[in-house]
């Protein structure tokens, strides 16, 4: 094929008795063209695309000319979607002559839209439409649980993504265990892999929330997460799914279908976990309220409660210091409950000599002295009659 054009043979055929066969001409033409035209990128407008036997037959054209093209099944498989009529594309291929028909054509092996993300956009919109039709895009989103015990992470065990998720989780919410399901995130077989990993999550009944994550990459690298099958598998996970795929600016179908979208894998881990320090401070607050609630009742408790009371009261007083500060700031709830608040409003508490609160008329006996606790102190009183 690469032999040089045989000039002497061409001179021989200048007379009819040296005539060439048709196939010889085509063979020579093909050899000549393949020798002269190296494989190249061609820019043109797509027209007349027909599929036959899994292969594509079409033309590229510009304002002056057309170029017949063929693209074979195995090369087509690598494209995210078929180009549309009139789309401007770059096609890479080798110019040749199809000997059987004597047709000059370009055997295209690679193709992309001249617009950025062109073919990917077509594939994306197609898959998105299919998902929308099945109600998957506007399905009800599950809320992420606040205190997860098991977090499933679907990602590659290689690379920084898993490490980021692990370190954020260990720092914020070490109570959680992480179940990693390894998957390839790009290249041949990655789609099957991710789908399989997501199906595996469904079997992990103890998992509270799942994170699907992948670091940034080119449009082609992220293509796996724009596959309709992957998006459907995400929707089928019974627990909430947080999607963190690519950079913040790349929105994949996986992101659109997930219950929550996170800008980065670390952010996904943050969304999946509460902050331990905040929870500790919530606990402290609850402790203060607990103490305050009881203190309200054990105030000046009589000695029948004995040592239990002593222990409690001292515990209570320790907590009261925290409680009075925190609660007055945080809620004011204790103030409302405090007896002092009630006294300030004009109520008074009568107690007998033993300190017992006199609640009912039956507790008062004519002539008995009692103490009346008002907001700023105690006054001595006596029952005039009952």
């Amino acid at each position, binding site marked *: 094929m690469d032999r040089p054009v045989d000039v002497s043979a061409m001179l021989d055929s200048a007379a009819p008795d040296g005539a060439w066969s048709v196939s010889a001409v085509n063979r020579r033409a093909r050899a000549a063209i393949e020798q002269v035209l190296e494989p190249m990128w061609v820019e043109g407008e797509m027209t007349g695309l027909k599929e036959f036997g899994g292969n594509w037959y079409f033309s590229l054209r510009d304002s002056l000319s057309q170029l017949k093209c063929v693209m074979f099944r195995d090369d087509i498989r690598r494209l995210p979607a078929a180009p549309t009529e009139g789309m401007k594309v770059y096609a890479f291929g080798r110019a040749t002559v199809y000997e059987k028909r004597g047709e000059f054509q370009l055997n295209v092996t690679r193709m992309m839209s001249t617009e950025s993300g062109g073919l990917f956009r077509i594939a994306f919109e197609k898959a998105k439409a299919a998902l929308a039709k099945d109600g998957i895009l506007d399905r009800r989103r599950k809320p992420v649980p606040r205190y997860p015990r098991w977090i499933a992470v679907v990602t590659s065990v290689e690379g920084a993504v898993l490490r980021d998720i692990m370190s954020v989780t*260990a720092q914020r919410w070490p109570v959680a*265990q992480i*179940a990693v399901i390894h998957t390839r995130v790009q290249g041949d077989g990655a789609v099957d892999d991710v789908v399989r990993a997501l199906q595996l999550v469904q079997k992990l009944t103890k998992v509270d929330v799942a994170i699907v994550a992948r670091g940034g990459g080119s449009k082609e690298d992220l293509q796996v997460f724009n596959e309709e099958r992957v998006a459907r598998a995400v929707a089928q996970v019974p627990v909430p799914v947080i999607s963190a795929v690519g950079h913040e600016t790349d929105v994949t179908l996986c992101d659109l279908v997930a219950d929550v979208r996170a800008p980065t894998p670390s952010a996904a881990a943050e969304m999946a976990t509460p902050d331990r320090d905040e929870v*500790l401070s919530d606990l402290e607050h609850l402790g203060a309220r607990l103490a305050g609630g*009881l203190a309200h009742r054990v105030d000046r408790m009589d000695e029948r409660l004995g040592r239990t009371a002593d222990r409690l009261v001292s515990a209570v007083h320790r907590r009261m210091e925290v409680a009075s500060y925190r609660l007055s700031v945080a809620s004011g709830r204790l103030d409302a409950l405090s007896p002092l608040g009630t006294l300030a409003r004009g109520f008074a508490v009568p107690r007998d000599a033993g300190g017992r609160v006199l609640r009912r008329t039956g507790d008062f006996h004519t002539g008995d002295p009692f103490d009346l606790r008002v907001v700023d102190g105690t006054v001595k009183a006596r029952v005039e009659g009952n």
Partner: protein
Amino acid sequence: MAAQPDFGKELERLEAIVRQLETPDLDLDQALKLFEEGVERLRAARDRLNTAQSKVKQVLSDHAGTLKVDDLDA
């Protein structure tokens, strides 16, 4: 996968105890019981938070679909 404490439920219970303690009509015996339960639960929750260490396991599935859980050292 070992059973893990459910913090959500723990905190809900604690909230409920506090709310009950703040109810004006509660008698002292009940108040004491609630208080002790609350203090115990608080202590346990705080300890758990302070000592917890996140573990990472890798879940694998063989050809028959049987799940296997391995420690992942990373």
